[in-house]
């Protein structure tokens, strides 16, 4: 089972989400090499025309953004990170958020993720599809993170489990079987 999480906000990032919806057709996932996925997302992000506000460029309209309190705009910078494990792949779409308003002055946030703080705007949007010998065969939408039968935000139990089950298999195929067996005990 391969899990792909595209991290964005389903409400405030409606337009982004809609576009990703388009991108996430079964055919798209079936045919696109993974390395190109990030490029594709970045190309989309860069294709959005911001409103020029002088010192800052605002994506309020172009992304359908709405924030309570203060004027907020996105800096013209996006970052997509791919997180790969043995059987899951997560794409996090990050941005640099610039908040401009009143006495608060200018605040910048970076690396927003998973809606885990008051200043975060990003929630999960999840696409799940399976891989058979490296070929994408199915896609389902709206699933939560799945990894090795564990579900949810706390999918990782002990650090040693993650090392043994996820990281070591990625290191040197010819040595990992022995090491993984040894460390998994």
């Amino acid at each position: 089972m391969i899990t792909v999480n595209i991290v964005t906000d389903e409400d405030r990032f409606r337009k982004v989400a809609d576009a990703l919806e388009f991108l996430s057709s079964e055919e798209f996932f079936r045919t696109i090499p993974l390395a190109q996925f990030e490029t594709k997302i970045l190309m989309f992000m860069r294709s959005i025309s911001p409103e020029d506000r002088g010192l800052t460029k605002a994506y309020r309209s172009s992304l359908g953004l709405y924030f309570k309190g203060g004027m907020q705009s996105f800096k013209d910078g996006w970052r997509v990170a791919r997180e790969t494990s043995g059987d899951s792949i997560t794409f996090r779409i990050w941005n640099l958020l610039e908040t401009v308003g009143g006495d608060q002055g200018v605040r910048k946030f970076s690396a927003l993720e998973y809606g885990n703080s008051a200043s975060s705007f990003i929630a999960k949007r999840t696409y799940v599809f399976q891989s058979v010998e490296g070929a994408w065969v199915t896609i389902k939408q709206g699933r939560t993170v799945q990894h090795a039968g564990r579900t949810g935000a706390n999918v990782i139990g002990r650090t040693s489990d993650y090392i043994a089950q996820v990281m070591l298999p990625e290191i040197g195929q010819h040595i990992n079987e022995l090491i993984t067996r040894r460390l998994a005990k």
Partner: protein
Amino acid sequence: MKTTTEVRNQLVSMIGSTIKIAQGYENDFDPAKVYNRYIKEITDDTSDVKYPKTFVCIARGEQRRMIAGEINNLLSFLIMHVVKRPDEKTDVQILLDSAMRDFERFFEMNDTLGGFVQTLDLVEFVTDSGFLDPEGVMIMRVTTERFKYGGE
């Protein structure tokens, strides 16, 4: 020619004693937290005082007999480095990036481990890519090469 465990112990010793801010690195490694084997209990111990922790494990060895009686001994080590962000504001992946720079510098500057081996190479590495936040884990595979000549 040094034995496999001597090479491993030299690697452990040099990582612990060399990676110091005073020596131009970005981090101060505590020799007491650089272990010469993988210890599961310490890996899973999330007490702040346990970080950063480094495990150096012998992964694989291979010996080839070359022409003229020369023996080429190739060793693979896994170095697991675990960090933890000290507070909410710190990005653990930045901590890991910093440790990675230190390791890369270490491998470059100590490519014979003080004369214990002929070569030392960082072959590959993986990171948890943020999955283990507030921890960050990096596993590196390094290889060393030793040559034993006739009569040695």
